[in-house]
């Protein structure tokens, strides 16, 4: 599903009416809240293996993600909005991931980066310790394919997540009825 095809407000949502002495903006409160939330998502630093290096490259100067609002990568889950699962999840790490997700404050979003987080990746067959997909543990909003995905692919995923939030279609928003 391509989120761009439906109605999307790229700039501040609302209609501006010019009246003498200023102007009035009419909008829905939900739209304004979604716009504000999507433009300042702070990721949690959660990198288990090789995809973590591509995530660090996206944070560095060439493919900068702080121009999209992901300014600071917080280390504590209490202060983060989005968790980017970069790397393989194994049986021993599953409860840790669930605990981190539970500690994050609402509203929270999840991106599964790389083939290992989507479905187990190259470690699908004949391994006794790999969880075959991070969505066996926590609900995921955006999947990014690649092993490891290029930094541009991760940027596309982050922008898709922003558009999904503005549309009101992430799992969090569907579940809570917004």
């Amino acid at each position, binding site marked *: 599903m391509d989120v761009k095809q439906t109605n999307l407000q790229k700039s501040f949502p609302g209609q501006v009416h010019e009246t003498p002495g200023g102007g009035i903006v009419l909008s829905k409160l939900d739209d304004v809240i979604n716009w504000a939330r999507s433009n300042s998502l702070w990721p949690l630093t959660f990198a288990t293996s090789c995809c973590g290096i591509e995530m660090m490259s996206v944070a560095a100067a060439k493919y900068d993600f702080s121009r999209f609002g992901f300014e600071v990568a917080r280390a504590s889950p209490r202060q983060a909005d989005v968790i980017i699962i970069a790397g393989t999840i194994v049986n021993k790490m599953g409860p840790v991931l669930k605990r981190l997700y539970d500690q994050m404050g609402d509203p929270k979003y999840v991106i599964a980066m790389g083939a290992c987080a989507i479905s187990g990746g190259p470690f699908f067959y*004949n*391994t*006794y310790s790999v969880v075959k997909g991070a969505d066996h543990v926590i609900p995921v909003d955006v999947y990014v394919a690649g092993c490891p995905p290029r930094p541009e692919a991760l940027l596309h995923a982050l922008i898709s997540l922003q558009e999904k939030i503005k549309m009101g279609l992430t799992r969090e928003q569907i579940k809570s009825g917004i």
Partner: protein
Amino acid sequence: MGNEDLKILITELLPAATYDESGEWLNIVVEPASWPAFAAQLRNHESLQFDYLFCLTCIDWKTNLSMVYHLSSTRYRHNIVVKSTLSADQPQINTVYDIWKTAELLEREVYEMFGVNFLNHPDLRLLILPDGWEGKNPMRKNYEDPINMIKL
């Protein structure tokens, strides 16, 4: 020292050892009971001085297990391989933690993957596998896991 000289010197120290010279390094096969004394001699002897243990592993041959130790000397730069055969149902051998300290974590890994009991080890418990995997020994050839392991 070359392989021939090492063989002569080691035969003096441990006459019961057998040899296998098919690879590039001298392979010595010892009994598990004589391993701790022999290991101390390998470490301390004047012209051997094997003070660097660089690989410690185990191979499952289905009827028995075989422990493999790769040793090298930082002074003379020669390498040897020491092997020891253990029984498949109750494998146990003495630890070499007091001689080479790197063996502490390496032996814990062999314990959880193959089930080998190391006598006199200071702290033998699971290292890499999660809790509840004691006794499962996944690297053995008779490890059964019908969900994950596919036999082609």
